[in-house]
């Protein structure tokens, strides 16, 4: 069987593929593949579609179609007054909106809260957008400066006095220490016992005058005593023509500074508060939710870093303490930690701290322990070579961690941190159990207002709070996924 080229048929180009059968392409084909591929699938599809339709319709019908949009009190939302089946009672939300957002924060001061939000956004957005430069400065501003600013804005009160007290306190301690260093450093012959006696006498006299005559107390007495002692020592030194001792002069300056600071505090020179104090009891609603969640996450970072490093430390006691702390907190529910902070912590302290502060301590401890595990995950992902490289360069431990390891590890755990924040944001609702009114707590308090008692009030409130919580958490989880994808591409390259 021979064939010649002429009577044989050889296709010289590829045949155009025939279009797929009409029932496999286009919307119909897609539907066949994804919705109706078998009888079982048809049933499932119809069933699912029915459920989805039911749920979505119920929600839309309640929140929009049958909803009441305006009104002054419950009469606007009662079926018998309106004459139809009523859906969501939105006027209830309008009337209580301030309470849900700010709690009992005085109306004329709510601008402070809004300003805090604006500053927070202005600092946070550039931190979250990867392409904006100066991340380090931004992070310092957000994690270091912003909390102080937020405290001053939200809580109010004198700005200078508390810091002045701290300065005075530290100054006294420093002066006392320097005075001791001075004497320890003196040579055998430099001072005779008379001089010692004179200095001691000066201190006792100074302290007694401050205590008895001036009626001062606590650290102030010590500051005065140290000041007297330093002056006496300086005077003796001058009489004996000894050169000025650096420690002594430093101690004297510190003691004098502390004395002046104490005097300023006591005389109330800077008493005039910049902003009136708004006690934390008056805070509430979304404000508390955000304050607790943000404080929790900001405080969790240092706690988490410390515990994570402690857990990987080679020192057995430190490691044991860190592991114990992490596992203890992670093994119990948040609510018991909150109970601990609310009911047990005051017993362990001399004075009971503010209720909000107690809750913040509990939340920070809790999220710190979880953050430690997140960060530990990041640390474990850093190759050993990085550690060895740092050591080979002669970096000490803080520098190795601070300059080489942590920046890489923290970058890896950004999605984990955002997820922790989502968790914390949701867990914040628990503070309402220990009588702090967050958004959910405010909502529950709002339900009991007789002015708005109606059958739909409850569901309206739930719809409102649900939308807020969902919007926040969904946005943040999207962001976390976005960062995760970005990190993955970075590492694949």
């Amino acid at each position, binding site marked *: 069987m021979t064939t010649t080229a002429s009577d044989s048929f050889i296709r010289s180009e590829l045949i155009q593929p025939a279009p797929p059968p009409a029932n496999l392409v286009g919307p119909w084909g897609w539907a066949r*593949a*994804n*919705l109706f*591929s078998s009888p079982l*699938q048809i049933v*499932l*599809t119809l069933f*699912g*579609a029915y*459920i*989805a339709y039911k749920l979505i319709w119920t929600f839309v019908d309640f929140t929009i179609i049958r909803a009441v949009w305006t009104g002054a009190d419950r009469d606007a939302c009662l079926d018998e007054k309106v004459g139809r089946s009523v859906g969501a009672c939105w006027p209830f939300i309008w009337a209580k909106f301030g309470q849900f957002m700010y709690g009992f924060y005085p109306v004329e001061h709510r601008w402070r809260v809004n300003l805090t939000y604006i500053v927070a956004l202005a600092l946070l957005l550039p931190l979250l957008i990867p392409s904006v430069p100066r991340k380090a400065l931004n992070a310092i501003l957000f994690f270091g400066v912003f909390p102080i600013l937020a405290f001053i804005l939200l809580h109010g009160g004198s700005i200078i006095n508390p810091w002045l007290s701290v300065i005075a306190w530290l100054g006294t301690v420093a002066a006392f220490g320097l005075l001791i260093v001075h004497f320890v450093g003196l040579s055998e012959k430099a001072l005779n016992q008379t001089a010692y006696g004179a200095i001691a006498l000066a201190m006792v006299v100074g302290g007694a005058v401050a205590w008895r005559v001036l009626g001062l107390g606590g650290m102030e007495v010590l500051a005065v005593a140290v000041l007297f002692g330093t002056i006496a020592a300086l005077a003796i030194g001058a009489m004996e023509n000894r050169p000025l001792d650096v420690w002594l002069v430093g101690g004297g300056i510190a003691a004098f500074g502390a004395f002046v600071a104490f005097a300023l505090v006591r005389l109330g020179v800077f008493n005039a508060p910049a902003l009136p104090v708004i006690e934390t009891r008056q805070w509430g609603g979304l404000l508390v939710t955000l304050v607790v969640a943000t404080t929790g996450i900001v405080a969790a970072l240092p706690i988490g870093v410390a515990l994570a490093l402690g857990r990987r430390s*080679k*020192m*057995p*006691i*430190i490691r044991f*303490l860190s592991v114990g702390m992490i596992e*203890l907190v992670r*093994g*119990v*529910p*948040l*609510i*018991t930690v909150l*109970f*601990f902070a609310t*009911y*047990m912590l*005051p*017993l*362990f*302290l*001399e004075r009971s701290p503010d209720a909000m502060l107690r809750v913040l301590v509990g939340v920070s401890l809790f999220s710190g322990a979880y953050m430690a595990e997140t960060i530990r995950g990041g640390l474990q992902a850093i190759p050993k070579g990085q550690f060895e490289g740092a050591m080979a360069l002669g970096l000490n431990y803080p520098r190795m961690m601070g300059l080489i390891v942590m920046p890489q590890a923290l970058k890896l755990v950004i999605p984990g941190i955002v997820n922790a924040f*989502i968790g914390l*944001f*949701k*867990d*914040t*609702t*628990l503070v*309402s*159990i220990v009588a702090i009114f967050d958004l*959910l707590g405010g909502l*529950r308090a709002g339900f009991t207002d007789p002015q708005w008692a109606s059958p739909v009030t*409850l569901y309206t409130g*739930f719809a409102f*709070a*649900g939308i807020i*919580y*969902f919007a926040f*958490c*969904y946005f943040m*989880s999207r962001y976390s996924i976005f960062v995760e994808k970005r990190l993955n591409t970075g590492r694949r390259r």
Partner: protein
Amino acid sequence: MTDGTLPARGDVAPKVAFFNDPKVRSLIFQALALALLIFVIYTAISNAVTNLTNQRIAAGFGFLDQTAGFGISQTLIPWAESMSYGRAFVIGLLNTLLVAVVGIFLATILGFVVGVARLSPNWVISKIAYWYVEIIRNLPLLFQILFWYLAVLAAMPAPRNSYSLFGLFFANQRGITAPRPVFEAGAIWIGAALVLGIVAAFVVRSWAYRRQAETGEQFPVVPTMWGIIIGLPVLAYLATGMPISFNYAEQGRFNLTGGMTIIPEFVALVIALVAYTAAFIGEIVRAGIQAVSHGQTEAGRSLGLAEGRILNLIVIPQALRVIIPPLTSQYLNLAKNSSLAVGIGYPDMVSVGGTILNQTGQAIEIIAMWMGCYLTISIVTSIFMNWYNERIALVER
């Protein structure tokens, strides 16, 4: 301290200040940490002693023997107001365990359904599963518990118009009521028969597997097992003269009387916990199944296995290895989250303990008991799941 002999050249380590010696340093750091810890604990204790003296609260667990005097709505063991705080706490603990066990069981089932649905080829089903997970995960659990509680109460009728099934089961705002079995003398044999049945069923199973391994013959294992487990107690029931009777619920003046009731707080709590945890388990299951290489399924098909068997024998055993560790932490989360019962007044350990704390002021003791119980639950669950994880782990030759 030189003893006169000079060390040989080269043996001398470069002279470092003692505080630069890593060993000394580590010792100093640890001593400092320890000292700080001791100082903090000492201060805390001395403050606590002062405060407790001022508030005239006696420290110690002596209060557990005092009469409680309050009522509890759900008790697994008998309870009366005249019993002690200690027993009240145990009732709370049992209620916590009940919610945790029921919740874990149901959440696992629903979670696997959600996980499989997420991967369903059916677009509608996978989208519904996706939005279920997104919505549930992004709402606070306490919010969901409160919602379900009020929704359950709103959906149910008043006790006088209960929904009824055959006149035996009722559902209303006070809970779900079923006939309560009353055990008479001889009922113990039925229990014994049940235990015996379960043991026998597993003996049969291992025998059947061995036989299949040796001869290749198959044996209807599952029906036989169920037959033994159900059949033996039924036989015992008939043989001992039917010693179990039922106490049926009747319409009382306010509530149904008699029968046994599942209170609505329990129902709402379980629904909320299961729905919430299932969303997380669903994602874990999805990730686990996706982690099994597609080649495994294809290999299964080329061996001629049915789709069900591929899933059962090839995909799930491999997926489980990925699933178990995160699943464990979800189980622990569920157990811990059951403490939110306090929000709706279900008498779990936290809410009963809270009442005791309130009546006696023994904050330290109660909180220590809570933490101890939760830590024990966590540790036991972890140990069990680790054991299970090791059992199913890949055995490498």
